[in-house]
């Protein structure tokens, strides 16, 4: 069961090896990731260096030039293959906090409530899930009070309860998805 954390390279199909320079920005399905994209994703979900020319260091390791690497990251961001590039902060260690919460939203109101929740700047993630509790989101802010205020506001504006699931303990692991 290595697919999440192993850095093993996926075998590229021959058709994917070359024709990658100019992908349309709208969608970049999995099959169109080239061998370089896969190596980039599998190798640099962490460990991007802190130094004068970090892209140059990574480019050297991938066997490409710096400008191509920067252009490729930019293209993958625009295509939505990457949601972000940069530091991933640990809210707990910043004196901040993040809290998972869920709501049971009537189907007829779902879009409206989901959009409203998304508008709150304290809401970092929001997923629709298949369950009576069908809207699951994370409130993240510098203080527990700010998160709690955001949840209270959502409750008052929607008239629906927000069930809080603060983490009581984290069992540590490192997410690494294999491309």
């Amino acid at each position, binding site marked *: 069961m290595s*697919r999440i954390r192993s850095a093993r390279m996926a075998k590229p199909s021959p058709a994917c090896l070359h024709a990658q320079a100019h992908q349309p920005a709208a969608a970049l399905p999995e099959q169109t990731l080239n061998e370089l994209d896969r190596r980039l994703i599998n190798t640099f*979900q962490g460990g991007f260096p802190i130094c004068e020319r970090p892209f140059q260091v990574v480019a050297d390791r991938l066997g490409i030039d710096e400008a191509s690497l920067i252009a490729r990251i930019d293209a993958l961001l625009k295509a*939505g293959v990457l949601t972000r*590039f940069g530091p991933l902060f640990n809210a707990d260690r910043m004196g901040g906090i993040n809290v998972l919460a869920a709501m049971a939203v009537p189907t007829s109101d779902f879009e409206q409530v989901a959009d409203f929740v998304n508008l709150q700047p304290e809401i970092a993630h929001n997923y629709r899930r298949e369950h*009576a509790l069908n809207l699951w989101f994370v409130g993240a802010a510098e203080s527990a009070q700010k998160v709690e205020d955001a949840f209270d506001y959502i409750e008052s504006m929607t008239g629906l309860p927000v069930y809080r699931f603060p983490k009581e303990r984290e069992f540590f692991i490192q997410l690494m998805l294999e491309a």
Partner: protein
Amino acid sequence: MDEIDRSLIAATQAGLPLTPQPYHAIAEQLGLTAEEVMARMQAMLESSVIRRIGVVPNHYALGYIANGMTVWDVADDKVDELGERIGQQPIVSHCYRRPRRLPHWPYNLFAMVHAKSREQAQADADQIAAVLGDACRKSDILYSSRMLKKTGLRLAE
């Protein structure tokens, strides 16, 4: 963490600049030296304020379309020991103990699995169930049918 660290977080939480010298670009923006930016980023990495620096892939775009939040009602006196073991399973990306919300929600252990099919996600859940054994009374998998929002933590600027 001081004000300078906070300004660094605010400046980088949406991403690093895509220029050959990203730390210099941040330094210029904040009126710091590049050396200070790099030293502080390194210190935040070492103290785990920064978990890691790199690319954050979109699960769906990589074909991980079955994103299951597996949830388990595990005996209170066993949940910490078993949670540690579940966290060590390579199929699990996040694992937390959380409060139950009775009577609606009996589950106290949450483990995320990311798979390319629901069959595979179910097989992952079966593997977790095997570790939990009799200590688990009830379980469920909540699949995400849509990602509605995903941003990093936002600090007020």
